[in-house]
């Protein structure tokens, strides 16, 4: 599904790059990426989401090289992914429901169907009762969950999540991970970056550990 082949990404005068990374994430896998800050987790995600281009090497998605796409080709590939950010990145002047339905609007899904699916996604993250509120009236953890609902609503083939439980209490963290697991169970490939090693161990999925831009374990 996702394959890195000798990927190096260097930033001038700053940390956080990758060095000679080769790895393979198979379709339907759920993988955690861990490592201290500056280890290269974010860079790994950016390369998959096509926000960065590798300095050397190739990144493959479903067998095709995405490391050098033209900017006009990126949107359609990106719509096949669900992205969850550390900062939830919501549209503050739209309702929670509209925020969640946004990827569907962009895809041309009819509004009734989009609302139906957005309601279902909000139900999964336990926020259905807040669908008509504005994002700024929600707590940080709730906003994060809205971000997750938005990432899963279009049933993408891949979900990339960067510290999705960063601002959430442990109980809710586990619940959110269960949401990801449910999607994984129906075949979605999931890649989650997290510091929460306890949670990672508890869930028992494959873990890729990065250190100074190198993969130190991917067992």
């Amino acid at each position, binding site marked *: 599904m996702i394959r890195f082949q000798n990927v190096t990404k260097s930033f001038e005068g700053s940390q956080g790059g990758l060095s000679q990374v080769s790895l393979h994430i198979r379709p339907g896998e759920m993988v955690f990426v861990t490592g201290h800050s500056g280890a290269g987790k*974010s860079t790994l995600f*950016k390369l998959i989401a096509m926000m960065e281009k590798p300095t050397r090497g190739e990144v493959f998605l479903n067998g095709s090289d995405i490391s050098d796409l033209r900017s006009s080709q990126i949107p*359609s*590939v990106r719509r096949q992914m669900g992205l969850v950010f*550390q*900062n939830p990145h*919501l549209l503050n002047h739209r309702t929670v429901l509209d925020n969640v339905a946004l990827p569907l609007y962009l895809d041309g899904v*009819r509004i009734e169907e989009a609302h139906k699916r957005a309601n279902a996604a909000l139900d999964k993250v336990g926020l259905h009762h807040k669908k008509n509120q504005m994002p700024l009236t929600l707590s940080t953890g709730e906003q994060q969950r809205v971000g997750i609902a938005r990432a899963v609503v279009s049933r993408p083939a891949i979900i990339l999540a*960067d510290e999705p439980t960063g601002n959430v209490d442990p109980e809710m963290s586990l619940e959110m991970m269960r949401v990801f697991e449910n999607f994984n169970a129906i075949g979605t490939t999931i890649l989650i970056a997290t510091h929460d090693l306890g949670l990672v161990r508890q869930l028992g999925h494959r873990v890729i550990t990065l250190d100074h831009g190198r993969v130190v374990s991917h067992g």
Partner: protein
Amino acid sequence: MAKQQSDSLYYPPMTFFFLGHFRALIYGFGQLWRRPAGNLMTIFVLAIALALPGCFFSFAHGIKQMLPPWQKAADMTVYLKDGQSADAINQLQKTINHMQGIASTKVISPSQGLQELNKEFPIADIVKQLPSNPLPTVIAISPSQLTNNLQQLQNLNQQIAQLPGVDTVQMAYQWVQQVMHLTKVLSRVAIIVGVIFALAILLMISNTIRLTLQKDKQDIQVFRFLGASRATILRPLLYQGLWLGIFAGVLAMIIMVMIGLLMIHPLNDLLQTFQIQLHAAIFFNGCTLFGVLLVSIILSWIGTRLSVQRAVFGSENDCVF
């Protein structure tokens, strides 16, 4: 995961296309509505910048239309000295006829002159009391269309004035030519002011949209991360620029009509000294007014395109993770 491209769940492509435009149109208006004070000021400044050259153009164009036709204005009247013989007059007419730039000539004898004068002014009784007809013999000249500038006409005038037997030469409406030159100046001013202000409008629109972009940077990022196409992201901004153009254009039309209403009386007084009847239509000319609206929309569109082109897609490398 394969998407279910079921017809009932997705909009048909054409419907989706138009729906996208409609949503962008509404969203673009919403963007203006969200910041009413700032946008209202921008609209006012744009409208003033449009209305000024619009007024110049309107006046110059309108006055030109009210003037008598050029041919009539260029006609000359040659007054002959008293006591010329019929032969001498015929000879003079021939000489003038052969000059370059003359279309036709006509001799008007003092008695014919008196008849024509009588048609316009009932003074026949007064003239009858005089010992003799005081009117001179006159040769009326129509210059050819080729003779179409004031310099050429003045040269012709001088040449004729130097002929033997000629007393004075008068151009029928010399002031018409002067007014025409004045309107040319006004037109030129309209073009210069128009070009300068068009540039100002472009910069102003660009700046307004650039500020919107800065304020909405996060929202635009969200759209990009969700895989919105370039067109989808640009559309609301372009429509926002379009709305600015429409509102500024309509306001400019209103300002132009108001200036027209303020100017109509003093201008009418001025023009009456030239015996020109003022038509209110020159200030309320639909073509000019809608032309201003159209120019406003086109400039706004270009200004918006200029500012979004670079700003939105400068780089893909915005930090999110």
